[in-house]
């Protein structure tokens, strides 16, 4: 089962494709529109929505493989869950949704799988594999066994390279952090509710007054 490519046609066509994959319906796309609408509920049960984009589920879930289809990364479901905990530590649930709510770990996996060069994919996987061993070594427990405070402490130590780290661990963390932030700021929730992105601004003002003088950089 291949990866769904949404870049060119958007969600409606994605539904068409899915309909084709799952139902093998042999009708023209236009005639399928209503049919697809009716089947939407059913289809949604087999889709994974990550930040507004539909990802195709893996066919191998029962065998302990990652829950989404990946072309290059060979990840287990356990590793996926560990990655989810790492992203949740980076961007936790507060009074607004956190990384797990927004399924940012799936976004990280999708981006590393498709958009990062092979070397970075290797570091990512190597670092992910070494994370638990590192935590056990340094904190006496694997990552998921640590308290939220210790999880942050462990990741900060990895980020700051305060001690010698196993192979790929720092690179892994940088990739996960950057992609988590990227996925967060570009998620439907944030773009609609927090830092709003407008599809149709309808205006341009080159002298917009700034009220708070908060400067960064």
């Amino acid at each position: 089962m291949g990866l769904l490519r949404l870049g060119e046609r958007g969600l409606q066509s994605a539904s068409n494709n899915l309909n084709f994959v799952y139902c093998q319906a042999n009708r023209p796309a236009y005639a399928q529109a209503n049919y697809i609408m009716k089947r939407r509920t059913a289809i949604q049960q087999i889709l994974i929505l990550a930040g507004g984009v539909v990802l195709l589920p893996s066919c191998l879930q029962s065998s302990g493989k990652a829950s989404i289809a990946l072309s290059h990364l060979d990840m287990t479901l356990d590793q996926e869950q560990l990655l989810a905990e790492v992203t949740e530590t980076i961007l936790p649930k507060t009074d607004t949704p956190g990384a797990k709510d927004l399924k940012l770990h799936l976004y990280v996996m999708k981006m590393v799988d498709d958009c990062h060069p092979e070397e970075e994919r290797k570091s990512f996987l190597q670092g992910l594999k070494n994370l638990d061993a590192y935590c056990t070594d340094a904190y006496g427990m694997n990552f998921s066994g640590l308290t939220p405070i210790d999880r942050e402490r462990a990741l900060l130590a990895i980020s700051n390279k305060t001690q010698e780290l196993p192979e790929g661990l720092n690179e892994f963390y940088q990739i996960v952090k950057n992609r988590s932030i990227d996925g967060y700021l570009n998620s439907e929730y944030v773009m609609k509710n927090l830092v709003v992105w407008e599809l149709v601004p309808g205006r341009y003002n080159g002298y917009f007054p700034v009220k708070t003088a908060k400067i960064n950089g």
Partner: protein
Amino acid sequence: MANFNIDAKAQQTFDAIVIGSGVSGGWAAKEFTGKGLATLVLERGRDVRHLKDYPTTNMYPYQFAHRGALTQEIKTENPVASRCYAFREDAMHFFVKDKEHPYVQEKPFDWIRGYQVGGKSLLWARQTQRWSDFDFEGPLRDDFAVDWPIRYKDLEHWYSYVERFAGISGNKDGLAELPDGEFLPGYPLNAVEDHFKKTLSGKYSGRKLISARCAHLSQPQDIHLQQGRGQCQNRVLCQRGCPFGGYFSSNSSTLPWAEKTGKLTLKPDSVVESIIYDEQKGRATGVRVIDAKTKKTTEYFANVIFVNAAALNTNLILLNSVSSRFPEGLGNDSGVLGKYVAFHNYSARVYAEFDGLRQFKTDGRNPAGGGYIPRFRNLHKHEMDFKRGYAAGFSAYRGFEPDMSGIGATLKKNINEKNLGPWRVNSHMMGETIPKESNYVRLSKDKKDDWGIPQLQIAVAYDDNDAKMKADYLEQLSDMFAEAGFSNIRKDESSQAPGLDIHEMGGARMGLDPKTSVLNKWNQMHACKNVFVTDGACMTSTSTQNPSLTYMAMTARAVDYAVAEMKKRNI
């Protein structure tokens, strides 16, 4: 059977044939059909209908699987296309993929193409600055190429004519080097762009910053509403196709207009193999077309043929149109066809920051992209150690720059703070390059495309003049930035190959003398009077201004002339 053939030939016969449906082909279609001529427009790519065929136009960033980024696979498969700034997840379906249409790079050349109805008019940067006599008199004054057979006065009326229909936003700036046009309200400069403008006028003589003029409907007029187009909504997602028709493209403007006359036949998926020349009649009688999908060959006939296939593809078609009268390509008595190809030098940029004017930011988006610095080097006389000069884009922007340090709830709070960064400013160079015989395109002797047509072999490179001009641009812009109080000034000497500017021009240049040029002052072939070229291939020199508006004006003028000549039975 005989009757069947006559009928078939009648069905394949038109008053006019236009090869290509991009910015100039669309104009040829509109003008011919507007004058009542049955017009066939041949487009080698697929059909793209306004509104209907813009699949990504209303998508939010989170609806793209990779949030707009290219995958490694696509980058690896498309080293050329993926170097173009607009080849991203939201618009890559409007670009030619490297593998689909290979060409031979005798020297590195990034050939960016859009094979579909509308061509690159869907994708262009929409900058529309008129040329002036400082440009048309350039080759004569500075002794390069050949003299242009036209001057500004020949095009002035036609600039106005196309501007009113296309809708051009700009201000009346009163500059001889960048004549004013028929403008809709211009997009204003922002606080820092205005600051830079004042710096230039205060500290330099002859250097100005104006609002860039662009093909956006800042205030649509009746003629635009009649086209079904509305006001630009400042989305600046133009490369996806605009649901408002806010910018000019063949798809939103000229082609639907031509269609309404009932005189237009538009055939997508039609690859023109060559133009048919009749030795007895001493004229071109039609074109040979290969169906892009079935590869079946069909011939179409007309009294007049306009070649608007995009600069280098127009060269390819002409070079491939051989007959015993024209063994080296149609209209190529002079031997210059395919030669004297030039482009714009876009290979330098300067970036900086500005700490002042922090009481302002920008809100919304500016479709004009900011400001434009018209050419100031060698303008009134040749005084530098290089020929000609450069225009420059200039823009300033201030946006959110989240603090991404730390981890956890603090990090999450920080990235939601909407912290503003400093003003960031940037400029890019738009240098005139000198057409030379050694910068040429020709047909590959051994490589063919999937339709059996020889591949184009491109040998176009920068020269010493370009290097000197680039050094001057980097030095001058850095000085101008420093004078304006900008900080952290960075010179970016990009190593980009020619072509990525997407302003390739020439090869079938206009000129007074048939011995040294292919086209006369009406864009008409010296040696084959019913064939006209009004796309980038016709250009004798490149100026510094974006060329599309000039192609539009030349096309409308050439059609007017061609139809008058047809009425007089001269062609």
